[in-house]
């Protein structure tokens, strides 16, 4: 069972949340000047790492707020949760489940 910390409600079971992909992808400002390839990169391409991943979650069965989570995609370890607009926390990702 994976537990996720909602920045408002505290630690809750994963089944209360919905995942919405990679976080910190800014919409390009100069949308008229964008080439098809640049649009394609923005809309479709994601980093998909094994290990540390910053992603967006929403507490859909709880307070219905969006926030960001730093999670290890290989071990499902959740390193941190933070509110939208807050800076990315710097995390030294571990690969084993045993290490905290």
């Amino acid at each position: 069972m994976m537990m996720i910390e909602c920045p408002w409600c505290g630690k809750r079971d994963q089944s209360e949340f919905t995942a919405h992909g990679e976080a910190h992808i800014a919409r390009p400002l100069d949308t008229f000047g964008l080439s098809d390839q640049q649009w394609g990169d923005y809309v479709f391409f994601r980093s998909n790492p094994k290990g540390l991943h910053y992603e967006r979650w929403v507490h859909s069965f709880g307070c219905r707020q969006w926030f960001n989570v730093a999670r290890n995609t290989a071990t499902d370890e959740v390193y941190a949760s933070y509110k939208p607009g807050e800076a990315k926390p710097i995390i030294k990702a571990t690969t084993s489940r045993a290490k905290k």
Partner: protein
Amino acid sequence: MSNTTQIQTPLAKSEPLELAGTHLQELPLSGKISLRGNSSNRKLAAAVKKATGLVLPTKANTFNHKGEGYVTWMGPNEWQITCELDQTNKLIDELRADLQDIHSAVVEVSDYYTTLQLSGPLARKVLANGSAFDTHPSQFNKGQCTQTRFGHAAILLQQLSAEPDYRIQIRWSYAQYLFDYLSAALHNHATDQ
């Protein structure tokens, strides 16, 4: 032709249940108002205090109540106000009048939800049957509330006393599902004793 409408609650045909000192029943329909706004704006808290006599809870997952009046934290910018059904329109008019200058929303949701009461010694066990939410007294106590998941349904859970006495608010269309699930769980735990 009569001008009065008879509102039938979704669980009108489900009998209240009492097993091993634990009660499960649907409560009479209450008035419910969804309030959105910025809690740092003093006008919001003042308007709620004036209309309901209750303090707007700003601490996450808490509620204030007096009699049938409740103000419940639903999110950092969302609350639910519960009142007697016949007071709903009056309350909405008062709130809308006081909040018209600030960024806010007051919406009636009375017939969107119904409320169940689950109280007694087996209540925690019954809730644990369908929800991963921790209701242990060290985690969840009187005056606290939460929105969580029970089976496939999204519920609002409020604890009124240490006994424990819970109010479970559920969307109208899920009410029968929740009631059947809770009563099956209560039957199981009562026979286990």
